[in-house]
């Protein structure tokens, strides 16, 4: 249930957020306080804690699905932060897909007309009332321009900015209260700041339009990447109109084969695209989930949704390459250097914990790292970091790690590997 500009709805949302937060916090702290009061050791074992994490993760999940807004995005962020949150939270909340019931067409029509400054019929010969996709911030409709060109129109929900603003305020209050009350709190406020910064960017569709154009420009000489053309005259801060492109969803193996495509070759192309964006160009579409990737019968990959596109700092790509290379050669010293280049740091300035992380990565990667960021590897990395919370992980690395992790997942579906080193080898 999303809230319109309705104080009662806002109150309901705030109360629900606070209630769930209190329940989650209380489930951890009350037993702890009780044991302390009774001067009894807390003998809850690992399985009991895991079960508790699971219950709390599900509570948060249910709340997010009901309330939507910022909370969906918050869950998605938690679902990527294995370095901070227990695996049960990551596993449950990463399921928080951005697929929601659509809003009534009248709301959408009103938004488009308000943004474009006239009735729909002034701009579109046809506008499908049924969306082709609906997510937490916007939904997408198929339409036809008056000159006959098919387009996709992404329309931001009219009240979403208010909802997000209110949710940010509520969640910030909860985090501040938690940090004040708890003796040894997790440092959640930086994560929240990161989330709200990204969200503000995602809510400005002009930025998404610029991101799409930038990626198209990067690949302009490489025919295997297709980015929808933005119809700038029909795009504003809250409405994004773009060329309508059709293709097979990247994980539709049967569909790919029916189109005469080899899934392994599709995976190779997709990996090459992301390796180029991340390591070479330093600017990438940071959300390669299957819904954002289509494949044409030619094998060309269509990239969609540039709301989450990230510019990486200079030298970051080389740092990622050096990290992978050092994992391939099992060289801890080189790995440590790569971590430093990437911005990993320990809060105490003592690098020995980074060495420990490097060692764990070497142990898991193998008997040899072969160029693919597997789940085991990233889990080993984040498990080591969770055990040593003095290590701060740069958010760019988290985003890149997530992107490669998603690619690996797509690779599993396609029966192929997302081998980063192979994709960047000279002559590939």
């Amino acid at each position, binding site marked *: 249930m999303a809230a319109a500009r309705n104080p009662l709805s806002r109150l309901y949302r705030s109360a629900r957020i606070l209630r769930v937060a209190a329940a989650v916090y209380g489930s951890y702290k009350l037993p702890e306080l009780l044991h302390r009061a009774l001067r009894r050791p807390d003998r809850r074992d690992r399985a009991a804690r895991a079960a508790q994490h699971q219950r709390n993760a599900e509570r948060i999940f249910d709340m997010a699905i009901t309330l939507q807004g910022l909370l969906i995005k918050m869950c998605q962020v938690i679902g990527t932060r294995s370095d901070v949150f227990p695996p049960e939270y990551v596993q449950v909340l990463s399921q928080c897909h951005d697929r929601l019931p659509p809003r009534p067409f009248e709301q959408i029509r009103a938004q488009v007309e308000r943004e474009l400054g006239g009735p729909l019929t002034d701009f579109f010969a046809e506008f499908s009332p049924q969306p082709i996709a609906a997510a937490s911030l916007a939904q997408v409709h198929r339409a036809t321009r008056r000159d006959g060109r098919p387009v996709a129109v992404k329309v931001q929900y009219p009240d979403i900015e208010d909802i997000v603003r209110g949710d940010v305020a509520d969640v910030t209050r909860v985090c501040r209260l938690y940090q004040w009350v708890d003796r040894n709190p997790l440092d959640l406020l930086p994560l929240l700041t990161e989330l709200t910064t990204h969200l503000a960017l995602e809510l400005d569709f002009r930025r998404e339009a610029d991101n799409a154009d930038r990626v198209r420009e990067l690949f302009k000489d490489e025919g295997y990447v297709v980015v929808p053309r933005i119809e700038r005259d029909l795009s504003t801060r809250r409405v994004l109109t773009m060329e309508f492109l059709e293709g097979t969803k990247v994980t539709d193996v049967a569909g790919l084969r029916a189109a005469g495509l080899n899934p392994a070759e599709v995976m190779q192309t997709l990996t090459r695209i992301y390796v*180029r964006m991340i390591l*070479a160009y330093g600017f990438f579409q940071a959300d390669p989930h299957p819904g954002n990737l289509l494949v044409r019968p030619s094998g060309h990959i269509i990239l969609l949704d540039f709301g989450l596109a990230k510019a990486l700092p200079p030298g970051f790509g080389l740092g990622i*390459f050096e990290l992978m*290379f050092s994992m391939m*050669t*099992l060289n801890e010293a*080189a790995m440590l250097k790569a971590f430093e280049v990437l911005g990993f740091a320990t809060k105490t300035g003592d690098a020995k914990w980074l060495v420990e992380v490097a060692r764990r990565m070497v142990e898991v990667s193998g008997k040899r790292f072969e160029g693919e960021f597997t789940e085991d590897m990233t889990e080993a990395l984040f498990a080591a970091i969770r055990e040593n919370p003095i290590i701060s992980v740069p958010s760019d690395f988290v985003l890149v790690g997530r992107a490669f992790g998603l690619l690996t997942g797509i690779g599993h579906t396609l029966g192929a590997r997302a081998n980063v080193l192979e994709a*960047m080898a000279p002559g590939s």
Partner: protein
Amino acid sequence: MDRLTYGEEELLSSVAYDEPLIANGVRCHGGFVGGIYRSPRSVGRGPAISAWQAQLGARGVPLIAIPPELVPPHYPSAAQAVLLLREGVREPLVRTLTTIAIIEGFGAMIRDQRVPDLSSCVREPLDGTATAHLTAGLFEAHARDEAGHRSEGGHKQMWEVARDLALGHPPVPPDVLMRLMTGRRGAARRRLFPALAEPLEELLTVMVNVMVIEVFAADTFRWAEVVLGDPEVSAAPGPAAAMVGYIRSDETPHVEYLRTALSELRACTLIGTGGEAVTGTEVIDALLLRTLRALTTDRPRLQREETRADIATAVASRPDAAGLQRRFDALEEEWVPPDVEARLAGAIH
């Protein structure tokens, strides 16, 4: 006769060094015995390659040899590079050295080269040959030499050390990876011998390509030793040039095992997927000709053009740009792509 069969551990074993090679704080492979540099993984590998080559000699089988006049000269020349460095135009050369280092590192991918069951596609027995040891230590040794292994850096790191020693830890241009990845991509290789099993042709193609690249690298080493060893422009001419020399001596077994194995296979009869026989000579010579054509003509020409453009861009930002460009051009050494067929005729035999 010398022993012809070696275990993997033997081929990967190194001498006991008096002193490891540590330069610029980086532990590299190899080390010193009696003050002399000894390459890594040379205890078994060196004698093994000698024994396999002697075996070929005893059978009257020639060793493949690439005529040195086919090797395209490095561009810019050593004199041009020294001029640029003297004038403070460092970025193109830092980019070149970093790119060389990265490409060396990718040489480790040879360990992943799939090798088919050769007993089913080569008529003659291969026991006691270099070919039989490709996946029994030779490819792995090669990979470790290029990329390093565990705490020991390989040629990738050694080139970086040479660069940093000579040029004082220069900032690496952020576009290095972009240029590497968006430069000319290898064109889809057309199969020359569709009758052969694809993995066999792929293996032979890779081995030929790597061998030629390794042979051609000799000129790069010569160039780098001159440039990085020039006291006018290098902050550590002795150590930097020495590092390049160590890499150069490490590369010798790569060329030798590859040309030995290819010579062995050249003297064999290869069996196609339909049972047809194809002489190794026909296959290896054709693959070699194709590779040499590509690497002695179009590729170096394109590389020169790109590098010239790069240098011109870097020079253009200098206050004395026109004069510097003229002096650079005055040092230009003419290069005419060789007639590969003519030079190769009889050269292999």
